[in-house]
Every structure is written in structure tokens, then in C-alpha cells.
């Protein structure tokens, strides 16, 4: 069976005034239908670039090599018109900031109708009816009234619900949620997490959740992919990766999450050093300079993808020299 999304050796370099910046390096990842994948990493890890690539939303200064196939069709080989059709009709996104993702000058209802412009064979009245029904499904009370309101009249939590409704209205096969709860309060965050969990049943395809919150991943995702400095360093089933992280970076990242530290402490574990400058070409492992287990080889040779042997198709792996027995 063809995976929904098949990414192979994807590298993306941005041309900038101060030279080329390598945002992604040899990323390979498969996402199956029905899966919820967590994409985690710190700022600068390339997770947003990878998410943009999935939506074919890369800026003009990006140079791409490798392959990103959606339902078997290479996204980068498509002509721009076909790629545009895919967005909002196959791939949908929920963005971090619900305050800027909606048009401030248009009523919610008009925007929700507009989002369905790819759907053929249904008229305006049917689109309105679908929008109202979807608002009700995402837990918005009095949806008819909300349809007549403007974004500024809504709170952050309601706006994020509207955006989830908008994404679901397009009946996407791939839903990319980029930090969907970062801008929200704790109690609102919990409501949105519950809604995202319920959305699994509404999406006939896969969900990619981009986040830096491991707790959220453990809560929602079947699989997790960990990124560092533009590389995918580990991927596998969430429970397995959280319980037995193979890559030293994954281990370090889990160790410094205060939510996972059960004993009260004043001294948090940190990862000494800094993320390498993506503008400087490097040999060897991206994490070598900060890794406590690095040896000579790590600084000179790119680490291999080592299967961690849960799935036998090589979809679960860690990229580390230390794992080669």
C-alpha cells in the first residue's frame, strides 16, 4: 500500500543574503493513513520547514532535493496550479496563532463558506449548512450567531475551534497542526486537546502535530518524529520513544521537560552548548558537539539510520553511531 505521505532524502536549503542556509538535511519519513504523528524539536530544528513542505508552502528562495510524495504523486514535480489545488483540498492546516489566521474584516460564516470553494456540486446554502454543523461539532454553542460574528469578537479558544472547523470542512487527507495550543491558556489548551483527539475520527487520513511539547505528543500521537538542526534524528511509536529513547538528543530533550520530572527540583537538566549554525556546512552528526556520548567518528562521519526494529520496514529508526553494534 502506498503511504499517504512518503518523504525520501528531502533536503531544503534557503538562499539568504548571508549565504545558503540548510534547513532540512536528508529527511526520510513515511506517514500512513489513520496515523497521528508528532513532529517535535526546538526552535531552529526545521520542524516548521518540514511542515511547510508537506503543505507545499515553501518560500521562493528554497532549493529542494529529494522526494515528497502525497498519495504516490511527487509534490515537487506537480505544476504550481495542481499544487495549489491540493491545499484546502487534500491538505489543511491549523496554525499556531488563532489571532492572525482569520481575516479580521470578514464574518466567520463568510470565511467558512469560502474555505469550501474546492467542493463541487454543492451550493451556497449547503455550504452554510455544513459550516454551521461543523461549528456545532467542534463544540461551539449557538453556531448561527457565531457565523455572523467577526474574529475580534471571539476569544482565543473559540477562534482556534473555528480554525479547526475550517480545516475539517475541507475534508483533508492530511491535517497539519502547527503548535495549535501554544497561544492558549491551560484550561483552554485542555479543551482544544480534547477536540483534537475527537478530530481523529473526523479526519479520513493522517494528522501531523508540530509541537515542542512532549506531554502533548504522549497524549495525542501514535508516532513521534524528533528533529534536531534540520535532521530527523529519531522516529518511532510514541510510547516506545518516550519510554526508551535511542538517540542521545531525544534522551536529553525528555530529561529537561519539567512536566516529566516527578520529583520537585530547583535544578533543571539542560543541554549544554548551542544548536549548530545552519549556514555552516558540517560533516558528522549534528548533535556531536553537545552529545555526552560522542566519539571521534561522530564528528567526521554522518551517522547512519539504524532501524530500532519495531516496524520491520525501517520506518522506526534513530540516527546515531552509538547504535551500530
Amino acid at each position, binding site marked *: 500500500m502506498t503511504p499517504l505521505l512518503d518523504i525520501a532524502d528531502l533536503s531544503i536549503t534557503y538562499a539568504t543574503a548571508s549565504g545558503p542556509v540548510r534547513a532540512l538535511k536528508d529527511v526520510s519519513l513515511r506517514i500512513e493513513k489513520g496515523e497521528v504523528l508528532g513532529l517535535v524539536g*526546538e526552535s531552529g530544528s526545521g520542524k516548521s520547514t518540514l511542515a511547510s513542505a508537506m503543505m507545499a508552502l515553501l518560500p521562493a528562495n528554497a532549493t529542494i532535493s529529494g522526494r515528497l510524495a502525497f498519495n504516490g504523486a511527487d509534490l515537487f514535480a506537480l505544476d504550481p496550479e495542481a499544487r495549489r489545488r491540493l491545499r484546502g483540498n487534500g491538505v489543511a492546516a491549523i496554525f499556531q496563532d488563532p489571532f492572525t489566521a482569520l481575516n479580521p474584516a470578514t464574518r466567520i460564516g463568510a470565511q467558512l463558506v469560502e474555505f469550501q470553494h474546492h467542493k463541487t456540486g454543492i451550493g451556497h446554502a449547503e455550504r452554510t449548512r455544513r459550516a454551521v454543523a461543523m461549528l456545532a461539532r467542534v463544540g461551539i454553542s449557538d453556531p448561527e450567531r457565531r457565523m455572523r460574528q467577526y474574529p475580534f469578537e471571539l476569544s482565543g479558544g473559540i477562534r482556534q475551534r473555528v480554525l479547526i472547523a475550517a480545516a475539517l470542512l475541507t475534508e483533508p487527507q492530511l491535517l497539519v497542526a502547527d503548535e495549535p495550543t501554544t497561544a492558549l491558556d491551560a484550561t483552554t489548551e485542555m479543551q482544544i486537546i480534547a477536540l483534537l483527539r475527537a478530530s481523529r475520527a473526523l479526519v479520513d487520513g493522517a494528522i501531523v502535530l508540530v509541537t515542542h511539547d512532549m506531554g502533548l505528543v504522549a497524549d495525542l500521537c501514535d508516532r513521534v518524529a524528533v528533529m534536531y538542526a534540520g535532521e530527523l534524528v529519531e522516529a518511532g511509536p510514541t510510547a516506545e520513544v518516550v519510554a526508551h529513547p535511542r538517540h542521545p538528543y531525544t534522551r536529553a530533550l525528555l530529561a529537561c521537560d*519539567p512536566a516529566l520530572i516527578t520529583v520537585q527540583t530547583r535544578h533543571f537538566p539542560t543541554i549544554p552548548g548551542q544548536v549548530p549554525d545552519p549556514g555552516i556546512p558540517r560533516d558528522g552528526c549534528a548533535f556531536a558537539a553537545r552529545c555526552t556520548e560522542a566519539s571521534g567518528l561522530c564528528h567526521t562521519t554522518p551517522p547512519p539510520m539504524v532501524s530500532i526494529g519495531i516496524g520491520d520496514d525501517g520506518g522506526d529508526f534513530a540516527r546515531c553511531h552509538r547504535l551500530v553494534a
Partner: protein
Amino acid sequence: MVLEIEDLVVRYRTGGWAGALRPKSQRHVEVLAGVGLTLDAGRTLGVVGESGSGKTTLARAVVGLAPIAAGVVRVDGMRASGWGDGPWRFIRRKVGFMFQDPLASLDPRMDVATLVTEPFVIHRTQGIDRRREAARLLDLVGLPARFLERHPYQLSGGQARRVSVARALALKPKLVIADEPTAGLDLSIQGDVLNLMTDLQAELGMSYLLITHNLTVARHVADEIAVMYLGRIVETGPTDAIYRAPAHPYTRALLGARGGGERIVLEGEPPGLSPRPQGCEFHGRCPIAKPRCQSEAPVERTVAPRHRVLCHFPLIQPDMAGTA
């Protein structure tokens, strides 16, 4: 006692002059409705709550940056009295302030050396070698001296936090108010900044008023917690007591966001402030609200030593406390 707040009320005027002509119109929004708390030397108090709960207003009111309608604020035993900004100068000398967004609070045209020694100029401190003080402060927060000439745009998020820590410490304050000191930072860098704040407290002995919505952070670094809802402190007590056995349903719901135990997911969002809800202000969202909560405002009760709650039906009873 480094900080003492009694019955603090902060009101903002609303509606403009036209509203004044309408009878019975609401002229004020009460953002803080009678807040009381104390903070001892060398301790950390975490103030937690959702946006709009009044955390930042409380922080600002401590240094006279919010319109105080009633109540008392004492910093190191001193109280500002009289009109205007003048009396607050003496209090502000004793308080270091780390604002929410460090990059926005650092003047983009000043270099780091000028930024961290600005408090000396504002408070007209005599006989100071600014250059030497700047180097000392950067050393204190673990930034190399080459950062002295840098400008804010050349700083990463974590470095900008360190600069704002350095500036807050310039006048050797008794109290440092840290408003969301780790918002927007990656986990590993968040740990760095918190470790730095902890080390500096051990070294210099000041108190922290830590304003945050991050409950997992507050749990680790605060000695005591105050939970705010709609401009009131609804629960306060020692950190481990509150996290082990929260007494207020709102606290339980907030904590339920992470960690074990029965999970309460709150419906809806905080109600508006004008007018304030009747009775217990939480009753509209409370999963265990009873008729009495709709009509009668709760009074503060003590459920354990130093552990107080504003609720008619607290989740723990006084006799249970201390046995867990």
C-alpha cells in the same frame, strides 16, 4: 517580610465621558478585587492563573504601575503614600522587574552595557563606574564581556532573558518580579534561565514574585503558590500541599492539565468583569457548584497551616490536611 499586600483593589476606568451620562452605567472594571499576600525574604512565590486573571496587573501594582483604588502595598516595610509617581521611586529602587517580553523591554538603540546600567541613571546613583558595573552584572548572569557592546537585535531569546535578569539585579533589589520569565523559550534554555535565577537567589538572597501560567515550572521553583481567578486569589499555600491536594476546584482543573489524578476539564471560558458574576465568581464553570454558590460569595477559609482557599465546598477538609 519583603512584600506585604493587603486588600489590594485595582480599577480601570472604562466607557469614556459619554458613558458617564448614562445612568447606572458601569464606570470601572475591577481587575484586582481585594488581593492579599505576603512574601518572606529569600523565598519564591508563584502567582498562577489564566490570562485575564490579574497576574500581570498584580505585578505592576506592586511598583505603582497600575491604578490602585484601595489597599496597601508594602515593600521591605515601606509604603508609597501621596499622589503621583514620586513616592514610588523609593519602592522601585528595591524592586527589580523582569518584563514579559524581554526584547520589547530592551531599547533597541542601546547596547547591553547601557541597558543593564540604566537603573543607576534612573535612580541617580552617585559614584558608579557604569562600565565596571555592567561587566560585573554580565558576569553575574553568565554572559561573556563581549556582549557589552551588543544590541538587542543581536541577542537570542535566552541571552535577552539574561540581560533582563542583569538589569533587574543592578540595584541589588530585595524583590525581583519576574513576569513569565520563560515564555517562548525552548525547554533546554528555559532550564538554563531558571537555574540561573535559582543560583542568584542562593547567592544574593532576594525574593522572587514569579508570575506564570506554566504550572509545571511553578511547581519546581516556587516555595508557595497563589492561584488567581478573575482578580482574586482563590487558593494559596505551600507548593507541595497545593500540588498534592488542591482545595479549590479551579486549582484542581488547572493542575489536571498535566499529571495524574481525576481530570477536570473546565467548560467555557472566564466570564467578563463588568459586571462581575454573582455569588462565587467561579460558579458558572465549576463542576461541583451548588445553589448556594450562585448567590453567596465564599469567604476565605484555612484548610491546613498556611493553606487557604476561597470556596464554599473545598475539595479537602481541614481535618484531612497534614495526614497525607
